[in-house]
């Protein structure tokens, strides 16, 4: 099912966690500026944003040259996600 025969890579470096801490601490401002968008954070700032995660990652990778950086969904307001059984299936 997957390439998990490959050993898991180690956790990302310290700069990743620093940026993740910064993003979580500033999510009020981030979600206000980029509501319901994906945001990539590097060096304690938003370096790319948009509705498509893959595009945001590509731009952030090109801008930063980093292999790993936090990418978060900047939820606006209160969002509830749920799988509700019984809804009709789609074709």
């Amino acid at each position: 099912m997957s390439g998990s025969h490959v050993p898991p890579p180690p956790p990302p470096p310290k700069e990743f966690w620093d940026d993740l801490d910064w993003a979580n601490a500033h999510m009020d401002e981030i979600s206000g500026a980029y509501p319901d968008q994906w945001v990539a954070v590097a060096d304690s700032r938003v370096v790319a944003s948009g509705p498509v995660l893959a595009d945001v990652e590509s731009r952030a990778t090109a801008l930063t040259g980093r292999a790993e950086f936090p990418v978060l969904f900047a939820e606006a307001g209160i969002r509830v996600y749920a799988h509700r059984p019984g809804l009709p299936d789609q074709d």
Partner: protein
Amino acid sequence: MRIVLGFQTKIDAEATLAGQPLRLIRLMVQVRLGTPEGWSRSRTAILDTGNPVSIIPHSVWRELALPRTPGLRRRLRGIGASDQTAVSGMLSRVRILFYDDRNVSAPVDMRAFLLDDDAAPLLIGFEDILTQTVLHCDYASGLAYLDL
């Protein structure tokens, strides 16, 4: 294996202006998902005990190693959402591992809905994860972790 989780706390500005301060708190976890070559880049997920099944946005699952047989297709919606605004996804199986800044868990196989787009974040739901791990959550002390 103990994996430390993080809290993300926002303030609901409208509620605060109305004199009823309200925090919007998320429990966050870092994961990697199995790809044909190995493991995905680092992904930030919401650990959502109210979600029966995990949800994976399109940009994340499109690079994963997935079973060849198509899964059950369902519409998904949250509180108050209509059928028109519901997102849709296909049930599949993926391999996932959890990590923090020090530890990496063993891989876990889980079922998840693969969304048609990126309109929702990566959510870790109950089935196959919280059914076989222990979740400790103490917001007041700022400590949360999964024991896998």
